[in-house]
Structures are given as C-alpha cells and as structure tokens.
C-alpha cells in the first residue's frame, strides 16, 4: 500500500496539471493569445509561472548533484538567477510590456520584427530559439524521463510517452496560455515542496553548522569502489571550481543574473501581464519565489554531502542520485510533496519550451518567409507544429544517444546570445540598428555552433570558460559596435509606431 502511495499521488498530480492545461483553451480568442498569451494573465499567475519556468528539474537533481561533486561552486548559478529577475524587470520590463500595446505580438520574433522591420532578424532569432528549445526539450526527455520512471515505477519509455504525451496534447490545445496557467499551478506546488526539503534537511543533517563541520573534517572516505575526498575548500565561497575551472566562477554570476533577461521564460511573460501595474508584483515576487526554490538546490546538495561525510550512506557513484538518497529517508508525506514538485518542474519547463519552439516555426519562420495566413489557420498551424515538435523531441530525447548530451549544452547561454541583441539592446537603445543586430545574431549562431564543435573535438577554453559566454559577449559587443556605425531602423529611422517605447 505504502509503495503505491507516492506513484499514485504523483500520477494524480500529473492528471491535474493536464486538466489545468486543457482548461486554458477557453481563454484563447486569437493567434496572439495562442502563441504568446498576450496581455492575458494577472500578476499572481505570471509570478509563479516565471519562477517555475526558470527552476527546471535541474534545480532538484543536477544542481544538488553538482554541489555533491564540486561543493558550493554551482550555487553561483542559482544565487545569480534569483537576482536576475529584478534586474530583468528594471532593465526591460516596461518596454517589453509596452510592445504589446504598440503592436500585435505573440512571440519574441514579433517584437524584433516590429522594432527592426526585418525578416532576416526574425528568422535568425527564430532559428536560435528553436535550436535552444529543442535542446532543452530533448534534455528534459532524457533526464526527466529517467526521473519519472524512478518515481512512477514504470519503464522510461512508458513514463516519457505518458507524461510528455499529455504535455503535447494540452499545449497543442491551449498554446502558451496552457503553459502559463499550468506553469503557475506547478510553481505553487514547487513552493510547497521547498517546505518539505527544509524540514527534511533539519531532520537529517541537524542544521548548517553541523553540516559544515562534518563535511570539512570528514577527510577521504571510500565505499564500494568509490572514493570521495572532502576538503574545507568544498564549502568555501568558490567551491572546488576555483582550482579546476575558475572560468566558471567568472561566467556563472554574469550569465545567470543578467542572463535571466535573455530567457524566453521571462521575456514572454512580461507581455503576458494584463495590467502594466502588475509588472511591480511580478518583478518583486518572482525573484523571491525563485530564491525560495534555490533552497532546494542548496539544501539537497548539502544534505547529500553530510550523509556521505557522516557515514549514513556510502560515497555516490552517480552524483545525480543525491536527491533520491535524501528524499527516500523522509516521511512518506514529504516524499509525495517533493516528488510532485520535481514532476512539476519537469512539466512546466517542457510545456513552455514546446510552445516557444512551435511558435518559432509556425509563426516566426512562416512570417519571415512572407507567407500570410488567417488568424484561425495560423493557430491551427501552431497546433500542428506543437505535435510535430513534441513527438520529434521525444523521439530524439529517447533515441538520440550521445547527440542529446552534446546538444544539451545549448540552452540558457544560447538564448542569451540571441535575445539580448535582438530584444534587450533593441528596445533599450534607439541607436541599435538593423545591421548591428543582424551581425550580432549571425555571430551568435556562428560561435554557438563552431565553438561547440571545437569543444567536442577536445579544445578547452582558458580557465575552463564555457563556449556560450564567448558567444554571448561577442554577440552583444558586435551588435553595439556595428550599430554605432550603421543606421538601418535606428535613430531617426526607428519605425514611427515603436518610437513611444523609448520614452517609457
């Protein structure tokens, strides 16, 4: 009976998310609402959906696994992200929301096209968004599928087709509105899960001081074929990356703070807010709720270190098992809540990226080519794209093998290298030119692909920097420098209807 409680509860929760997703079809009247949920939701929904969109399953599984592996280093990702929400709203919030009153928009490509009147910019941005979304989706299938199979107690293929099948159906029916509404619901569940983790941390590790002293004094421990060395450096402010790859300590605080404003999960939600006054609540509270979610990353990672250091469990051969080792030792009610939160994170992230990827093809690519459809046909084209992209990404995630891991490195940084030149710089600065943004996006595409190939061929960048930071810094600099010496759609040539944005 007990064995069935957790998978049963999680299965019921998955069905409830499906129900919320289907309900959102009632809210859709236009293709803008299908692709972008434009001006559709209040601050509470957008706040929770923003948080759940950024906090993926990586925050529950991969993040704590990295804490177990390299100490506090990976926490820079999640600490920085928490600050990034308010940064994003200070910098670009009201201008992105303003674009929804300036023109009919449903995607980030719409914003770029209205600003620069360029099919090439819309097309390149769509391509970058599609590549990164596809990579995210395939990673969610591969990583999330394994997690789902463990929780539900069924094969990975069955778990993936069941859960991702439901996601594909409700996103095809409700579009971005379903991703937003279901995202808000799952976000609320994730916050409840945090309470369970905090209780579990104190129950098992006995608090922060006990954890710190146990870990720094543990020395080297060996279990079955696995040795884990504990050092005080693991729990200092830099963690073990300071010795092995300090470049990560440079790029993570940048890419995960300023980079939040480059994430579609945040940018698209800015124009989903119905009343502009709601920008205040979302900017203020979404960062706080995300920070509460960060506690999962921190505490699960720390408690895994504690359990091994204290001899409660043997050293882990797979760091990603840290979260499961922790949760399995908790009361059944806490297990149910935390596993439901984990599934919530997988579903909300997958639904959002499925909607963005299909929009990139069915709306941005189609419009970039100059093809015109009625609103009704455009919406149905979107639904067909959701089905094709969804099934394609599930197949790729399940059977793509090593390619999934390689492409999985596209994601957060790839988004930043595309959206900041086209949307953030474009809306901040009248001087951003069509030529500048085209050059910036072209360099982003080129560098993301070539530098990834270089890393796969064994090339290592200085001090362990990741390739995506180079793509981001170059694409932003190139956009600004080329814009400075060109004038297409910039300065006096800014489209008339976009002019009021720069006075906001």
């Amino acid at each position, binding site marked *: 009976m007990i064995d069935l409680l957790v998978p049963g509860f999680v299965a019921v929760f998955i069905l409830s998310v499906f129900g919320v997703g289907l309900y959102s079809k009632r809210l859709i009247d236009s293709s803008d609402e299908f692709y972008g949920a434009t001006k559709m939701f209040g601050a509470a929904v957008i706040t929770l959906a923003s948080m759940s969109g950024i906090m993926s399953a990586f925050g529950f599984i991969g993040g704590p696994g990295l804490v177990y592996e390299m100490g*506090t280093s990976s*926490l*820079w990702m999640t*600490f920085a992200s*928490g*600050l990034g*929400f*308010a*940064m994003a709203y200070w*910098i*670009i919030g*009201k201008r992105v929301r*303003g674009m929804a*009153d300036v023109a009919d928009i449903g995607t980030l490509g719409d914003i770029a096209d209205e600003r620069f009147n360029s099919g090439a910019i819309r097309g390149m941005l769509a391509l970058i968004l599609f590549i990164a979304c596809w990579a995210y989706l395939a990673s969610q299938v591969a990583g999330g599928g394994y997690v789902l199979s463990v929780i539900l107690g069924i094969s990975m293929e069955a778990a993936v087709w069941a859960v991702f099948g439901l996601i594909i159906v409700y996103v095809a029916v409700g579009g971005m509105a379903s991703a937003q509404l279901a995202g808000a619901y799952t976000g609320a569940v994730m916050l409840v899960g945090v309470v369970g983790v905090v209780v579990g941390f104190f129950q098992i590790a006995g*608090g*922060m*001081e006990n954890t*710190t*002293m146990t870990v*720094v004094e543990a020395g080297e421990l060996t279990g079955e074929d696995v040795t884990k060395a504990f050092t*005080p450096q693991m*729990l*200092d*402010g*830099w963690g073990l990356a300071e010795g092995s790859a300090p*470049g990560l*300590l*440079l*790029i993570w605080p*940048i890419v995960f703070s*300023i980079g939040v404003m480059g994430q579609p999960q945040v940018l698209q939600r800015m124009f989903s807010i119905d009343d502009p*006054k709601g*920008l*205040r609540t979302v*900017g*203020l509270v979404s*960062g*706080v709720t995300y920070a509460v979610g960060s506690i999962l990353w921190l505490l699960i990672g720390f408690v895994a270190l504690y359990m091994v250091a204290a001899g409660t469990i043997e050293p882990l051969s797979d760091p990603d098992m840290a979260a499961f080792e922790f949760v399995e030792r908790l009361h059944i009610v806490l297990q149910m809540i935390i596993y439901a939160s984990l599934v919530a994170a997988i579903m909300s992230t997958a639904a959002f990226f499925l909607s963005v990827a299909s929009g990139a093809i069915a709306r941005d690519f189609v419009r970039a080519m100059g093809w015109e459809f009625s609103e009704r046909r455009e919406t149905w084209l979107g639904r067909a794209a959701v089905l094709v992209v969804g099934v394609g990404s599930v197949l790729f995630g399940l059977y793509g093998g090593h390619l999934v891991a390689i492409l999985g490195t596209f994601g957060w940084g790839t988004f930043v290298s595309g959206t900041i030149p086209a949307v953030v*710089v474009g809306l*901040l*600065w*009248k*001087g*951003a030119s069509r030529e500048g943004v085209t050059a910036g996006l072209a360099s982003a595409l080129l560098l993301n692909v070539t530098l990834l190939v270089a890393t796969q061929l064994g090339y290592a*960048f*200085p*001090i362990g920097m990741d390739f995506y*930071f180079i793509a981001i*810094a170059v694409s*932003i*600099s190139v956009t600004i*420098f080329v814009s*400075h010496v060109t004038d297409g759609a910039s300065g006096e*040539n800014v489209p*008339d*209807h976009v*002019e*009021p944005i720069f*006075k*906001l």
Partner: protein
Amino acid sequence: MLNGQIDVESWTSELMLASGVLWAAVLGLGLAGQWFPALLLSVFLFHPWFVIGASSGGTISTKLLVYPLGIWTALQLSAFGLIEYYANAFGGSPDFLITGMHPSFAAAYWLYWIGGFMTVTLAYGIYFRKHFLPDGEWDRFLEEVERVEAEDDTQEAADPAEVTNR
C-alpha cells in the same frame, strides 16, 4: 541632492557603447586568465543598462543611482573581496563559522545573495510607483501610441501609394 533628476536620453548611445566595451573587456580578461579582475569588472555590466532601463521619460532619479545601484555595487565588490580573502585565510578547516557557514561562503550567501535581494529586488518594489512607472505614465504612453497611429493613418490616407516605414 538625492531629489535630482539626471538626463539619460542624450547619453544613451554613450552608455550603450560603454556596455559594449565592458563586455569585450570582461571577455578579454577572462581569455587572458585573469578571472578575478574580470569578475570585479563584471559587476559594472549591469550599470549602463540599469540607468537606461530604470529611467522614466528620459531621466533617472539620483536616488536610484545611490539605492539600489550604488549600494548593490558596494555589496557585490565587498562580497567578492571577502570570499577571496577568507577562501585563502585558513590552512585547513576554518577557525570560526558565520551563521554555521564557512566565512567565505557566508560572504557569498549574505552579501552577494541576500544583500543583492535587499537592494536590486526590494528597491524595485519600493521605487516602482515613484520613479519607475509613476501614475499616469502608462496613460501618456498609450496616448502617444494613439497619436502616432493616427498620424500614420492620416499619412496613408493622403498618399496610399507611399510605403511607410512601419
């Protein structure tokens, strides 16, 4: 002094150019292996975009430059400095803990993270209505949007063959 307004509109291009130089400089320092100086410099990547984005009607309140921007800058720089100092201060286990944490991690936790929230995030809520989106500003924006649309419609009606830049 803190009640002043600073013109941002006429300096936007210079601020954006500065941000382009900063991004290139941080990357250059990183590629040269100077990760810690690059990290300190990276704190200022936020500044040019913040000044432009937080402005309202082409000006920014000096209050915003002090809090959150100035205080946030001080917190970030002191956090990075203290993290580095305490990371190298002990031969083995730390001599003392701060709120149960290694002193170096405590600087990251309290100054960088919690301090960051108490400045950038909290100030957004506090100053939203007064300096970021004052009452009536959105209505003025919508009036401007309607005025531009009306002008475009008039121009198109007068010369339907002419291609507008919309």
